[in-house]
C-alpha cells in the first residue's frame, strides 16, 4: 500500500526510484523510472540505428533488461548512464544484424521539428534539408563512431561517462570522437555541396517571368 506521507513518484530522484524498485519490489517506482527515461532511450536508439522499427525494439528490450538486471545494479554510476549503456549495446547489435539488409534511413522519421511550423517556408525547407544531410552523413560513420558522436554531441555525455557507456578507455573515446567528427564534417560537406543537377534545377533570376 502506498505510504500516504511519501512524495509522489514523479518528485523522486532516479536513485530513490531505483532503491524502491530494486529493494522493495515497487512496481510503480519501476514504471515511473522507465517512463521518465523512455523518450531518451528511444531517441538514442533511433540515432544509432537510424531506423524507427529497430529503435522501438531496442528501447523495449532495454527496459526488460533493466528490470532483469536491476537486482544487480549497484548504483556505482547514474541510472541514466547504465541505461545508455544497455541501449547503446543493443542498438549496436541491431545495426550489425541490419547491415546485410539496410533499411531506408529514418528520414529521420523524426517528424516536424517543434517550432518550425511558424518559420518561413524557405527556412523550413532549408532546415529539413540540413537534417536530411546530417542523417545521411551520420549513416556513413561506423556504428561505433556514430554512437560515440551521438552520445557526446547530442546527449552531452562527458568523456568519462562515454568511456563507461562504451566500455572503452577515455583515450579510445577521444580517438573515436575525433574520427567521427572529422568524417562527419567531410560527409556533410559532400551533402551540402550543390550538385550540377541541383544547380541546374535552380532557375536563373527572372526565369519564368515571361510565362
Amino acid at each position, binding site marked *: 500500500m502506498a505510504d500516504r506521507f511519501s512524495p509522489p513518484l514523479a518528485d523522486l530522484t532516479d536513485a530513490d526510484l531505483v532503491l524502491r524498485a530494486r529493494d522493495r519490489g515497487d512496481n510503480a517506482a519501476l514504471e515511473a523510472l522507465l517512463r521518465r527515461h*523512455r523518450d531518451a532511450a528511444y531517441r538514442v536508439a533511433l540515432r544509432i540505428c537510424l531506423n524507427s522499427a529497430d529503435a522501438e525494439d531496442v528501447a523495449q528490450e532495454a527496459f526488460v533488461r533493466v*528490470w532483469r538486471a536491476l537486482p544487480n545494479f549497484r548504483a556505482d554510476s547514474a541510472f541514466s548512464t547504465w541505461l545508455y549503456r544497455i541501449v547503446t549495446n543493443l542498438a549496436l547489435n541491431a545495426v550489425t544484424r541490419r547491415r546485410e539488409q539496410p533499411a531506408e534511413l529514418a528520414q529521420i522519421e523524426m517528424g516536424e521539428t517543434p517550432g518550425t511550423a511558424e518559420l518561413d517556408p524557405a527556412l523550413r525547407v532549408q532546415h529539413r534539408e540540413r537534417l536530411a544531410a546530417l542523417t545521411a552523413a551520420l549513416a556513413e560513420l561506423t556504428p561505433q563512431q556514430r554512437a560515440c558522436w551521438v552520445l557526446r554531441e547530442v546527449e552531452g555525455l562527458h568523456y568519462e561517462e562515454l568511456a563507461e557507456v562504451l566500455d572503452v578507455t577515455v583515450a579510445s573515446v577521444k580517438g573515436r570522437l575525433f574520427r567521427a567528427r572529422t568524417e562527419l*564534417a567531410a560527409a556533410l560537406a559532400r551533402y551540402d555541396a550543390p550538385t550540377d543537377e541541383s544547380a541546374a534545377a535552380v532557375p536563373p533570376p527572372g526565369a519564368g517571368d515571361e510565362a
Partner: protein
Amino acid sequence: MSDDFDPDLPEEGADDSAADSLHAELGALLRSVAPAAPEVVHRRALSRIRLEREVLLISRTLGGALFRVVTALPDYLSHRSNR
C-alpha cells in the same frame, strides 16, 4: 586501426572553436527533432516484465513445492515401510 591512435587529441573543454561550434550546431539540430517513444514501446515492455515476473513467481512456487515434496519423501517412505 586502434582507437587510441593519437595522444595529442584535444582534451575535453580544450579550445577547438571551429570544430566545436560545427558539432554543437549539428547536435542542437538533432536535439531540435525530438521524437517521443511510441506509447506501445512502454506498454509492451511492461507487459513482458509482468509476464516474466509471473513466470518467475510460478516457477519459484512450484520449485518450493517440489523441494518440500522431495525432502519429505524419505520420511514418508520410511514411515510407510515401518507400518
